[in-house]
């Protein structure tokens, strides 16, 4: 099967460009997802910390969680934001004390551990949530606030941006086309030189060599390139080749 030098080199070049653009696009997507997750978590933390401040104020006055009448108002304050699905105040065992919106994990399904950590976050396909522990004045666990972000909206934002970044990556890959064409153009002149040598050599082998070597001087690249060296070596070897093939023909005759 015949192949072309220009296609080989251009193909390798295009492949390198596509691989580099793919890697960069992947890194851009991963970086965005990491940054977006961090921004969402920081916002959820601000909400949880704001509620904690009010709850701790009540605890400091000696009120148990269950006796705080203003809890529904405190929790509902942040539900106004469209992407916050639920804000829940739980006791330290995971039982719900008060909630606004629709808590996704009633019954302690999303409970992180027996002893709640000071803060935690959970980002998965089903859950985008952050929890903050409330300590009383003695430093003991008094409750936990969990803020649930809409997982669907979170996923939609990630998907929307991922699509844009993939489109940008695909557009970037188009650069491989002019690079490929340029490489082909670069090797076209070399192809002309090689084609001339091949035709000339075929004529010698057929015993039909005329006086010239058939190489267009205009097609030769300038400078001391490898092609010039091949052409020079060919020109030097040509008389011996003609002599060898002519003798061969005489012998056969």
């Amino acid at each position, binding site marked *: 099967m015949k192949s072309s*030098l220009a296609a080989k*080199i251009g193909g*390798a*070049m295009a492949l*390198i*460009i596509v691989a*580099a*653009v793919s*890697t*960069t*696009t992947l*890194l*851009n997507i*991963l*970086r*965005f997802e*990491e*940054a977006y997750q*961090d*921004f969402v978590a*920081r*916002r959820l933390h*601000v*909400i949880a*910390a*704001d509620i904690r401040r009010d709850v701790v104020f009540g605890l400091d006055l000696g009120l148990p969680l269950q006796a705080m009448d203003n809890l529904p108002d405190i929790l509902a304050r942040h539900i106004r934001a469209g992407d916050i699905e639920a804000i829940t105040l739980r006791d330290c065992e995971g039982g719900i004390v008060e909630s606004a919106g629709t808590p996704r994990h009633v019954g302690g399904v999303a409970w992180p551990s027996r002893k709640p950590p000071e803060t935690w976050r959970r980002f998965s396909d089903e859950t985008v949530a952050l929890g903050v522990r409330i300590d009383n004045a003695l430093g003991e666990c008094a409750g936990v606030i969990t803020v649930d972000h809409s997982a669907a909206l979170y996923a939609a934002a990630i998907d*929307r*941006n991922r699509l*844009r*970044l993939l489109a*940008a990556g695909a*557009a*970037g*890959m188009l*650069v491989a086309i002019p*690079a490929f064409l*340029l*490489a082909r153009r*670069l090797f076209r002149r*070399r192809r002309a030189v*090689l084609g001339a*040598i*091949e035709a000339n*050599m*075929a004529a*010698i*082998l057929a015993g039909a060599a005329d006086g010239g070597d058939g190489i267009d001087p205009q097609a030769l690249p300038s*400078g*001391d390139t*490898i092609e010039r060296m*091949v052409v020079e*070596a*060919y020109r*030097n*070897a040509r008389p*011996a*080749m003609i002599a*060898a*093939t002519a003798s*061969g023909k005489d012998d056969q005759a």
Partner: protein
Amino acid sequence: MIRRWLLDPVTQCICITGVALAVALSGISLLSFHTSQDALFGQLAGKALIETDQARRRIDRALDLGIPLDGIVGIDAMFKGLVAAEPDIAFMVVSGSDDGIVSASGLSASEIGVIQAAAPEAMPEGAASGQSLRGGHLITRLPLTTPSAAGSHVAIGYDAEALTRPLRDSLVDVGIILLAIMLLSFELMLLVLTVNVVLPARTAIRVLREAATGRFSLLHGQVMTDELGRVLGRINEGVRRGAAKLGITPSATHEPRLVGVRLLAFLFVCAEELARPIMPAYFETFITSVPALGRETAIGMMMGAHMIMVALITPAASMLYGHIGRRHMYAAGALIATLGLLGTAFAQGFWDLLLWRTLSGAGYAITFTACQGFVLESTGQANRSQGVAMMVSGIMLADVCGPAIGGILAARIGYPATFVLGAGLALLAVVLMPRLMGPDTRATADRPPRITWSALTGTLRSPRFVALLLLAAIPSKVLLTGYLYYLVPVALIERGANAAEVGRALMIYGLVALVSGPLFARLADARGRHGLAVAAGGLIAAMGILPVAEIPVAWVIFLGIAALGLGQALSISSQVSVAIDLSAAAINVHGTGPVMGVMRLMERLGGSFGPFVAASLAAAFGTTTAMGLLALYAGGSAILFLAVSMRAPKPQPDAPS
């Protein structure tokens, strides 16, 4: 010279690839920067709204208690509390019903006035009413709700940098990736062009020159189906006819694919270097299973195990080389490294991790020896330095690209997956080896140097050679393994850096050494002051690292890394010349190879204690003081070596030292 370089097809292809990559990668990264910024804006705006609302409620509460707006105290304290939780908050301002500023925190009232008076900039989606982008700040302005303060407002200004910072890091990553990919594409284009154009053309020239003399004894041995292949087919036909007339059988010939050693060396070093930035941190996760060893001892032991294996297995592999051949040896080494890296990724405890690291070290040493043998077999005296330089450039490239790319990947895919990727790279080396290495040529006498007992004792009999080992070669290796491989990642992680940032820092060493190495080698050869160059290299590295003990900040650590790269580039090439000068007697008896083998063995053994020493010093005095102590050791050794080398008589050619 420049014209010839510009007309070279390799240069032209690399320029095209470089320009195309620069355009594509910078374009998509800028686009990504802007689209991601827009997506993040909504979250930042939402957060700013909550924080401003908090401030408003607290001020309203004070107003409800009857405190007048200009009489409220503690607004500054409240602002400090907000900044403590969110450092990107630049200012908070409370303004009265006449828009006059009642209280300003963070910036002066006049500065805030200028920002608020600036023309509003276009905002992405997600902003609430009362939010605007002005003067490089996201301003959230909410009215106070207490009737006594009707018309008054509280506003919080976020530095717009908050949006760009996480993405700017991404641009730095892209810059690193761009650089690494440019270097890699250079390697790949060089390989493709050399194999498909340069080597067949060189063979064709050889065949044609032979034919021109009427000998017709050589045929082109490379089978190709492209234009060049078709020309070569015709030439071969002409040669066959000429040979038939002479009654001889021409033999096939081709150029050795020495260029393949670059990629082979790159692959086996990069497989290990990918995980370099995360090694201390990853190994630390296993130390709980060996509480008796202590954190530093355990990590130092783990890192040293790999290096000891490299030191010990290299001479053993050299002895087996003649029996096994380079292809089998490279394949075996790369497979062992694959197994070692996979085992490292999935290790269950400290002791099995130690086993996997030693396997990894053994694989590294075996592949290194196979590459060394490939260079020796494929070159003669005339082009040996060129061959060695080709292998070294592959290794240096891996030193640059491996930690940088590995760090970025590790920060995203995790530590074990980075080792798995390294294993994949080692496996890729096995797959590519048959094409890159060519068939074994067992007839040649040039083999990797074998260290014999007599060579070892003969070499170590020269006190000045021992001085070179103890005062230059070993200290520079200890500095490399102790400072760069152990202390730098630990110190940077202590300062909050992630794996990507550690990788970028380690990359500085490779870059500086890659750029300055050939320059220093030429300079030292031209001046002939190799002893001075060795001492100066040690001193430069030591002086560059020493300030870290007093100024323990990241940029001083980076300076230390650059100084280490510079110092090692200056010192290492000259160490070889000094070693040859100092061990002339041993070389006369055993040859250069075994003597240099002894030097490499001793310096590698010494270097394997680097992480252990560094870890022990760090445990006793802290990480940055340990850096300073290592620098003092290296600097002191360099001064002593200078004194020893100045007292040495000038070496006479072929005379025993």
